[in-house]
């Protein structure tokens, strides 16, 4: 470890209109890990990512990426938004979308060329989508669209990735492909933060977790942090049963088949 954290957040507070969505969130993310951001609906998981990336204004707090501001480090940051955030009937094809990942490196006015096409195809190949490069994006299935978004983030060639619910509404095959990719990124020393919903797979997928519900409930290595007490505090009493199941060691194994 170099001593510089890929991501440091301190005292982060975000509010929409009058409602405070996140209060006083602070944590450090270690390098080269897969980190799950876990919490109930409306807990502010997506907002946390968006505030770090400067997509929503923060009321207070500091965000440091590899020791610098997001503005200066943004070429080291890759982002996978929620699939529903765009209109897939846009007139463009899969490769074109992936090449958008290079727009930040290209800068103003310059168009993507042969080099960008090559890299774009390579990234599509990594997510198993090279056969669909010329396909109009509305004619892709939900899982394929999600993989195109992942390939676009890969094309950014970043060191720190943020993924907003990449597993939402995808089939088992895509979920496996995404997990394989996450491990590949990790083995290259990249750090990946993933907003995640399915408690059953948390222990299996992530090295570290952030438990969020309006504030940071707990953060740390999954085996120490994914405890019934912490889940109780994150989800409240109504989640007692599911939480008990999810936290039992055997459950994650059963779900992996």
């Amino acid at each position, binding site marked *: 470890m170099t001593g510089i954290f890929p991501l440091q957040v301190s005292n982060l507070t975000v509010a929409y209109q009058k409602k405070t969505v996140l209060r006083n969130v602070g944590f450090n993310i270690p390098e080269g890990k897969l980190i799950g951001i876990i919490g109930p609906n409306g807990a502010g998981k997506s907002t946390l990512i968006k505030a770090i*990336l400067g997509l929503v204004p923060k009321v207070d707090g500091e965000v440091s990426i590899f020791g610098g501001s997001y503005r200066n480090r943004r*070429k080291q940051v890759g*982002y996978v*938004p929620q699939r529903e955030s765009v*209109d897939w009937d846009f*007139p463009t094809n899969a490769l074109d979308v992936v090449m*958008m990942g290079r*727009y930040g490196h290209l800068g103003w006015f310059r168009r993507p060329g042969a080099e960008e096409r090559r890299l774009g195809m390579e990234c599509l190949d990594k997510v198993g989508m090279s056969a669909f490069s010329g396909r109009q994006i509305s004619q892709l299935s939900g899982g394929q669209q999600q993989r195109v978004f992942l390939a676009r983030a890969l094309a*950014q060639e970043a060191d720190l990735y943020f993924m907003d619910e990449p597993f939402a509404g995808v089939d088992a095959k895509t979920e496996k492909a995404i997990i394989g990719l996450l491990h590949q990124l990790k083995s290259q020393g990249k750090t990946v933060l993933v907003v995640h919903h399915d408690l059953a797979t948390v222990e299996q997928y992530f090295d570290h977790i952030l438990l969020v519900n309006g504030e940071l409930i707990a953060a740390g290595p999954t085996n120490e942090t994914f405890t019934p007490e912490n889940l109780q505090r994150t989800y409240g009493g109504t989640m007692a049963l599911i939480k008990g199941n999810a936290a039992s060691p055997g459950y994650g194994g059963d779900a992996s088949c």
Partner: protein
Amino acid sequence: MLNWLAGMLTDPNVRWILFGSLLLGLGNGVIGSFSYLRKQSLLGDTLAHASLPGICISFMLSGVKSVGLFVVGAILSGMVATFGIHAITRYTRIKQDAAMGIVLSFFFGIGIVLMTHIQHSGNGNQSGLDKYMFGQAASMMKPDLYMMAAVSAGLILLSILLFKEFKLVSFDPGYARGLGYPAAALEQLLLFLTVVSVVAGVQAVGVVLIAALLITPAAAARYWTHRLGVMVVLAGLFGALSGAAGTLVSSALDNLPTGPVTVLSATSLFVLSALFAPGRGVIAKALVSRKVKSDYVLQQAGNSPELQTTVKASGEEV
């Protein structure tokens, strides 16, 4: 017909007006593609209607019919209208479509009141101002044409230069911001270009119908292609064709305003596209679904034992 066309084209005045309306249609089609894809088609219409009070106030303050001043006035009132929509959606529970409806009719109402006031003021200069309602390409002077052509050329040039940026911000503005592009500024620029293209066309096509030149060619072009670049060029061509048709027909027939003819031409192109475009067109879709159904019926016939015999009897391999 050809003689009539050739006769008209020898008139240098008509040639100029034709050239201007071609460029205008081209520029509107190009910018309109981005409005259409950003689902802001109605915003163009609101801005067009909102330009009327701006034009009237410029005239009342200056006392002259200067296109340059009108453009400034129209842009200012367009900006006030955008601000109004923004304020309504932000501070009330009213959604954007209702906010646009309110602002559009309010500004148009003010425009009509001001225009009526001007027409009864006895100012000799005012004659022709009413042409801004439905447009009269034939009434345009050389300087107006230069202005219109220059603005349209500028719009097209900017769209070529910033094609990549406009594409990114139209498809995924959040991602654009993440990459470090000033998405909000680019969206503002697109909005500003929409205002400019609307205002540039107001004299030729009129405030009431100019939005059609923005939206309809883009909607028609979307039927033919799955590539943004092709769509933008096609929308430009459809717009140019509609503009030219509107100008020629309204110049040939006295007292026929240009706007309605332009809009009818654009709409014809849209109907043709919606019906006959391969892939997305109504007819192509109907043919595909019929083929899928008949294939399915054949397949079922192949799978069910009692029908299998009849199929086999007729010598078909399953």
